[in-house]
């Protein structure tokens, strides 16, 4: 029983990191129609900056998360304003452009921070563990679950209860009309892209506890994000949350039960979802 609970907690905490990663990418895809393949690279940039602030400079984890999010947010904003904006209505060019940035950002990080992987880190007050059903369980993982839940509620509120979310939902359905109503879609898009990149960067610092900090994270995290999106469905917070937790839990039990074939449980889930429900579990028709 405790084996089950521990693995479930592992899965849910990993799933929350996956949710953090995928939610931002899913929002941008749903609201702006842009598949941002550099999303994982933003995560990586956030992770490195966060590591510098929280570990190297010895500040708190909170400041690290803020700095990581801000760094990634600014990189994202620069990419959207400087380049992506000019490729409006050209989804192929947009997606390819963002893919070029995976290479650019990964190599820049390698240049600045060097190739050696950083150890996972977390805040001082989160080191140590709770006792759960007679087993020690790291506090940091519980913190990740809480953090994911808070962010999930926040994003859901932003999506369904605010003017911003309404603009996004309207913009998605009919860009011309939204623009005709005098809503500044350009500004809205810039804000959405910044928020999405910020979440990615912050997730890089939060997830560092589980995934560490490496220069190959950009591609790895991208892959995880898109599996979550394919499984959960595009364009909604709920989809990213469901996809993230499902994949996290399946991965945790996969690793526990078939350590040799761990990664395949994820792919298998994805393939089954694609065959049974190509739009993803909570996705709209594409």
């Amino acid at each position, binding site marked *: 029983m405790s084996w089950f609970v521990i693995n479930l907690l592992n899965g849910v905490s990993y799933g929350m990191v996956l949710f953090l990663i995928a939610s931002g990418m899913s929002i941008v895809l749903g609201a702006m129609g842009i598949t941002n393949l550099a999303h994982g690279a933003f995560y990586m940039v956030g992770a490195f900056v966060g590591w510098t602030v929280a570990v190297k400079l010895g500040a708190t984890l909170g400041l690290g998360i803020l700095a990581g999010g801000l760094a990634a947010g600014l990189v994202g904003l620069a990419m959207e304003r400087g380049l992506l904006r000019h490729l409006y209505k050209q989804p192929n060019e947009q997606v390819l452009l963002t893919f070029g940035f995976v290479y650019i950002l990964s190599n820049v990080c390698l240049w600045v921070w060097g190739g050696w992987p950083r150890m996972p880190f977390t805040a001082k007050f989160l080191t140590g563990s709770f006792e759960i059903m007679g087993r020690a369980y790291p506090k940091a993982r519980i913190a990740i679950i809480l953090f994911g839940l808070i962010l999930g509620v926040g994003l859901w509120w932003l999506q369904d209860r605010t003017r911003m979310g309404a603009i996004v939902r309207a913009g998605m359905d009919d860009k011309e009309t939204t623009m005709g109503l005098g809503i500044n879609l350009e500004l809205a898009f810039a804000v959405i892209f910044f928020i999405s990149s910020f979440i990615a960067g912050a997730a890089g610092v939060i997830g560092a506890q589980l995934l560490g900090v490496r220069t190959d994270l950009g*591609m790895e995290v991208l892959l995880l994000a898109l599996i979550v999106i394919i499984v959960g469905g595009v364009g909604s917070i709920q989809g990213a949350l469901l996809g993230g937790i499902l994949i996290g839990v399946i991965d945790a039990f996969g690793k526990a039960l078939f350590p040799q074939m761990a990664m395949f449980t994820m792919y298998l889930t994805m393939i089954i979802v694609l065959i049974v429900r190509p739009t993803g579990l909570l996705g709209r028709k594409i």
Partner: protein
Amino acid sequence: MVVANRRTDKNSIMTTVPYLAGALILAIIPLFLSRYGQGLMTRFLIFALFAMSYNVVFGYAGLLSLGHAAFFGAGGYAVALLKLHYNVDLFWITAPFGLLLATFVAALFGIVALRVTGIYFLLVTFALGQMLYSLAWNVKWLSSKGMQGITGINLPDLGIPGFSLDTTSFYYMVLICFIISCILLYRLVRSPFGLALVGIREDESRMEAVGYNVWLYKYTALVISGAFAGIAGVLFAYYNFFVSPNHLGIATSFLPMVMAIMGGLGTFLGPVIGAAVFIFVETFASIFLPQRWPLILGGLFVLTIMFAREGIGVYLWKIWEKVSHRYGIVEG
């Protein structure tokens, strides 16, 4: 993506001259090159073929795939596995096997990936490619002892008594494979099937309405393209003497995409020119700035998309058209 237009009734001399000239140059040039240079030329031809196969899917049919290395790698792994487990070197066995394996992988991928359309196709092909990567990484049978990937591949045995390949003759063997593939691909894109792919790229629903089974065309295009990528993979294994999980995954899938886009999508020779530019830059980067190669590659790619969307090959073609008109090679 800006894609050049097909012309249905261009003067045949004008289109043939560059092809013949190109073939001639490719046939003569190794005589003036060192073994290193010949190796580079071999690499160029292999990647040009790989990029051309990719062009069928993305350039002609408009399917943005990020998993094309799976077929390339399948061809390569077929060669490597036959060598590793059965010590088979004979080209007439390994090549068909590689071709079949790549085609088979493409046929399976297509069933899953063509469940979705548009950008989602890219996401799914990406993930499927990474699945094979991860398979090759984790399954011991798919690696030489104590490593990730398979070594110990030699130049192929052509089964001709008293003859074994060296760098130069291997180049010519690759050249022959390349030219045969070119002819087949050229016929393909000029056929009704090829034009139908372009129609699908432009407007799927109209194609359905005038009587085309769009899914079947996409699927067939993907499988055919996978077969040619497989041939490139077979040749690559012999060129490289080593295959690794990377040759199945995203790092390799990115290459034909870069080449096809840089050279000119949806044009027949664009990917070849893209491959030439790519190998050229790669070679210089590997000498002078090996650490910064991904940065250069990414930067070049971004610049192409922002500023040279038609591709370098299309610009060259336009220059050729001007020249050929001015000197009266053809009537305008």
